[in-house]
């Protein structure tokens, strides 16, 4: 993996250097579709976890379009070298699930077969490349390249001396959210739509949890580290101003031991879309995976991956690394407003507009300490109530107030 990282790194800085040094400018470019050659996109993945595995099928789509066109009518199956065949059925959005639970086993090879509109697509025969065992997952205080402090999530890995290994990591992050302001009340717009009135609000708005899945996999390799028995790889870095680490944070790290070819496929995908820049551009082209059409010239883009999986969850208390004052203050992400009074007797209360937008909610009255936090010109006619961003008074707009089952508040 390292080699790719190196590449990406110097490419980046080359571009930056020239860009800024010489008044270069990069601006967005309006691109138009110049032709549509639809290509079948296959994401195939089977692991050694005993479960119902999934395969996704879709078509590529126009540049202007945002409509993903899923393939829902294909016959999908995975055939093992021992003759076992695992058939899949379409669930929704192009995702096919195996009817039965199964797992990839060492010593066997697996092949993906797709039949769609009379064309058969076959993958190469893939196998598990050893057993993935995730090492210690740790959080530590680090400084990133931009000089910003933050929490790095690392895995400790022991490399195999004989063989270069390739890993893919996915993760799922869960973090606690505490609404910075609480009042015990909220404003409700009256049925006539003219006024809003204060009602009691339960405390359930204060503490929530949110879970986010990683979008792109993180790729790592033991290349150039074959002789090292143990080393760390940074999988995730959260700068101190990331609100995910404002309170308690948890990450579930999934490690897949993948084949060199699969690694190269993902790398290429990433390279052609991510680290492209003005001055050293990789030659783009069609990315060939390990799936081909057998009885036609149709192009397929995708990879059928067979991998060994392992996972580990850790919890992080950011206060072990930072003081409360290190985090961004509430005022940096919460804004307060103090709506005025109606202009004329018959016009609706300005509060109504704020409340109906769903963006703001009651935080206190004119006698609350919030009043002092708002700078208004003298003699501004002010109403009775002060509002804040809704996310600052009701955390349910950011997550759920149901604590996840796996959540451990204190270790």
């Amino acid at each position: 993996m390292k080699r790719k990282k190196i590449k990406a790194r110097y490419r980046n800085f080359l571009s930056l250097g020239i860009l800024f040094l010489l008044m270069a400018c990069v601006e967005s470019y309006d691109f138009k579709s110049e032709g549509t050659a639809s290509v079948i996109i296959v994401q195939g993945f089977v692991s050694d976890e005993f479960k119902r595995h999934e395969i996704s099928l879709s078509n590529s789509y126009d540049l202007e379009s945002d409509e993903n066109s899923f393939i829902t009518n294909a016959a999908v199956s995975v055939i093992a070298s021992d003759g076992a065949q695992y058939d899949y059925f379409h669930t929704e959005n192009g995702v096919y699930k195996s009817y039965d639970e199964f797992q990839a086993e060492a010593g066997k090879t697996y092949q993906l077969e797709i039949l769609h509109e009379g064309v058969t697509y076959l993958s190469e025969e893939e196998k598990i490349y050893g057993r993935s065992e995730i090492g210690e997952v740790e959080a530590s205080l680090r400084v990133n390249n931009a000089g910003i402090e933050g929490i790095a999530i690392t895995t400790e890995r022991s490399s195999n001396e004989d063989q270069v290994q390739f890993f893919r990591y996915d993760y799922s992050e869960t973090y606690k959210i505490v609404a910075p302001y609480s009042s015990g009340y909220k404003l409700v717009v009256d049925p006539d739509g003219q006024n809003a009135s204060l009602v009691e609000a339960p405390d359930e708005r204060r503490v929530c949890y949110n879970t986010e899945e990683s979008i792109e996999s993180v790729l790592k390799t033991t290349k150039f580290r074959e002789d090292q028995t143990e080393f760390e790889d940074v999988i995730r870095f959260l700068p101190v101003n990331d609100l995910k680490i404002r309170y308690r944070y948890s990450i579930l790290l999934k490690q897949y031991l993948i084949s060199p070819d699969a690694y190269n496929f993902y790398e290429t995908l990433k390279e052609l879309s991510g680290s492209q820049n003005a001055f050293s551009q990789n030659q783009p082209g069609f990315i060939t995976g390990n799936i081909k059409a057998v009885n036609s010239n149709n192009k397929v883009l995708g990879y059928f991956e067979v991998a060994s999986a392992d996972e580990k969850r850790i919890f992080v208390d950011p206060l072990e690394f930072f003081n409360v004052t290190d985090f961004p203050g509430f005022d940096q992400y919460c804004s307060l407003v103090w709506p005025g009074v109606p202009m004329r007797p018959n016009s609706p209360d300005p509060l109504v507009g704020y409340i109906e937008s769903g963006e703001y909610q009651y935080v206190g009255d004119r006698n609350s300490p919030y009043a002092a936090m708002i700078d208004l010109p003298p003699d501004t006619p002010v109403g009775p109530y002060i509002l804040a961003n809704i996310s600052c008074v009701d955390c349910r707009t950011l997550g759920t107030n149901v604590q996840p089952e796996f959540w451990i508040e204190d270790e």
Partner: protein
Amino acid sequence: MQRLLFLFIFCMSLQSLSAQDSIQKLTINFNDVPLREALQQIEERSGLEIFYAEQWIPETLISKTFEETPLNEILDELFSETILNYYIFNGENIILTSNSRIYDKLPEGFFGRDPQENIDQDLVQDEPSAAPVFYNNSQDPNQEIETVRIGKEGAQPNRRTYQLSGYVLDKATGEPITNLAVILENTGTGVSTNINGYYEIKLRAGENLIRTSSITNENVTKRVIIYSDGTLNLNLTESLESLGEVQISSNANKNVENANTGEEEIDIENIKNVPLVLGERDILKVAMTLPGITTAGEGSAGYNVRGGKADQNLILLDDAVMYNPAHFFGLFSAINPFTTGSATIYKGNIPAEYGGRLSSVFDLRTKDSNTREFQGEASIGPVTSNLTVELPIIKEKSGLMLGGRSTYSNWILRSLDEPQLKNSTAFFYDGIAKYNHEFNENNKLTATAYVSDDRFSITSDSVYNYQNRLLTLHYNHRFNDRNRGALILTNSDYKFNIDYDNSLQDSFRSGYHINETEVKLDMKHVLNSAHQFDYGVSTKLYQIDPGFIEPLDSESSINDFSLSEEQGLESAIWLADNYEVNEKLSLSAGLRYSIFTSLGAEQIRYYDPASPKNDNSVIGTEEFESNEPIKTYSGPELRLSARYFLLPDLSVKGSYNNTYQYIHTLSNNVTVSPTDTYRLSGYHIEPQGARQFSLGFFKNWMENTVETSIEGYYKTSDNLLDFKTGANLFLNEFVETEVIQGEGKSYGAELLIKKKAGDFNGWLSYTYSRSFLKLDGEFDEETVNDGEFFPSNYDKPHDFSLVTNYKLTQRFSFSANFVYQTGRPITYPTGKFDYGGSEYVLYSDRNQFRIPDYYRLDLSVNLEGNHKLEKLGHTFWNFSVYNVLGRNNPYSVFFVTQDGEVEGKQASIFSVPVPTISFNFQF
């Protein structure tokens, strides 16, 4: 004073024409006394007074004993080595004269002569004539013509003509000025100086006005009063203001006469007038304005000549190969403009002595140092400062030139608001030293050392560095008039390093290194005026460290790893005949045979031919020992070119040539990047080959001041190296698994109109050209665009350049450039797709679309200091504005996936006008 005295004496002599009698005899002894003292002693002994002007008397020492010698004999003896004459006046005074002789009788025919006889006598040269030399002393006071007296009038009968000879040398460099006309004003006839600056001219006795005429040097007029055969050496200063015209005069009809097609010469001196970005004089950037030579874009290193790849140019600095002639990724070239003497680009027929690259040769030569006096030049621009000095070591024999440039562009980075860049650095320098030593006219040695270094650190954790180093020893020997040769030893070295240092345990240094050493013997033999042979032999050893990685500190968990060293031996022999068949037809026929062997140690993998080369298709391996030949390639290379004069100033030229190249860049970038590595041909990678036909018409107009040419070419090539999409080339032991070798095809027509002289000069070039690639491997992943020909990354059909300079006065000039080019092809996405929750773009056919066209106008004003000789130095100011129109020329269009969404981006480098001032000082 001298003249007045002379006139006085002359009048006196006419008035008293009495005979010289009763000559005194003296016994006198001089022992190492100055002549002046000797004369004083004579005065004392003889009691005579001697009249003379002190400045006439040379500082010669006299050692002589006279015993009872008549005074006139003593004086004869004393003055024999001088230009002095004497006249003993009335036996009391001795009057000395310079050059002239005082006559005591009128010559025969003084009062008129038969005209017929006169004519006859004029026709008969060297006939003794009794006529004394008289000349008109009245002078036009406005005419500051120096009068020179040559020789001494003898008492014997004079000849009517005398021979004047001498050397004409350059005042500054001491080099002989050849082909300088020495013209006799009276008759308008003249002679020219030979290669040593020597001339001989017959002058009528007496006063003559001679004038020198040359475009390279100042023109002087001298009044020569000649009394006998003599010498007159002239030291002339270079006429700076007309330097641009030097080439016209010396190679006036080279454009039409040269038998070689596709040869371009860059007038180094004149490029200072060409407006260039950030005030950097740049020879290679000027080359871009010539037809057939392009670059993929502003800020892109590498040149594409006649549709060839950027790695197909042999860039030679004093015979040594320069691997990366770019600073700042191509925004500036690494060639020092102040030390460079000549730049010749061969893009058509490449002479047989050059080889190893398919497309072109950039033959850059450093000036010889001045061997007479210290000389220097300095310039200050916004990006770099430059200093060149020339130091004579042994007068008129050897000299050392030192040139250096360094950037101080860090301030540009520092002055930016971007916090990340405040800590970054960008730095480059280059330095050159050249020593030239002329043992005698047959033996000359030059030695050049060059180094260039670029260092960047944009992010705090990475330092990026690349370096060129060249060494040349060049020994020229002239065996005789017909045979001469050069023995050349060169060594070139190129390397880059990336230091990556962070707080994690993966700090490393990785890099690449290539070194080549070449010995070349280049001989010339002039058989007769029709045949001139070039022949020679060369051999070159390559040593490449294709890549390494090592931990940067003990904390790092990175292991040492390096690819095994690559070695190769490339040799060639050649013979070429420059054959003047007749007045109209001239041939340049060359044959080169090149042979390349890749050498171990290396592990070679054999692959199953029925499947693509990859780790799974290996069917065997073989270990080769160090220096063991692995694979040998060889082939003949024809270099044929002919010129035929249709009219005296119109010629047609045609050529065919083929070339082989055994070294390739590994790069899967669209354009050249400094991290591209060079690899040799070997077991799996075959040498590239190309064939080019070219035909052109060349015509000069207006007495060779305007040159025009139109040239067409058709070129095919094979085994061009390309790579599978997403190929991983960094530290890849088995590059063959990523390689596709394909065919190339290019053709074009080039038009050039050049006006080299006059107040308004410059050139216009237009090229229509196409360049295609075909990658049609056996397997799907080795096929691009269905195996059809597709436009290469540097295919720019229309390329128009206009470079003009208008001289308002000798000191003020204006320059303007205009450039128009078709936008280069890009690979455009044909769609999008989702993968793992992210959106990506789908590319299918390569290079089917183009970025918008490129055009740019640059203007500059040049102000030269005056040319007074006494002035300490010569100054030159240049004010220029690059991209006056502020055209936002896209350099590239690319697509990124950000936060799961695809975005198109367009990058341009100089999207606003860039004004620059630079100052240049010669001393």
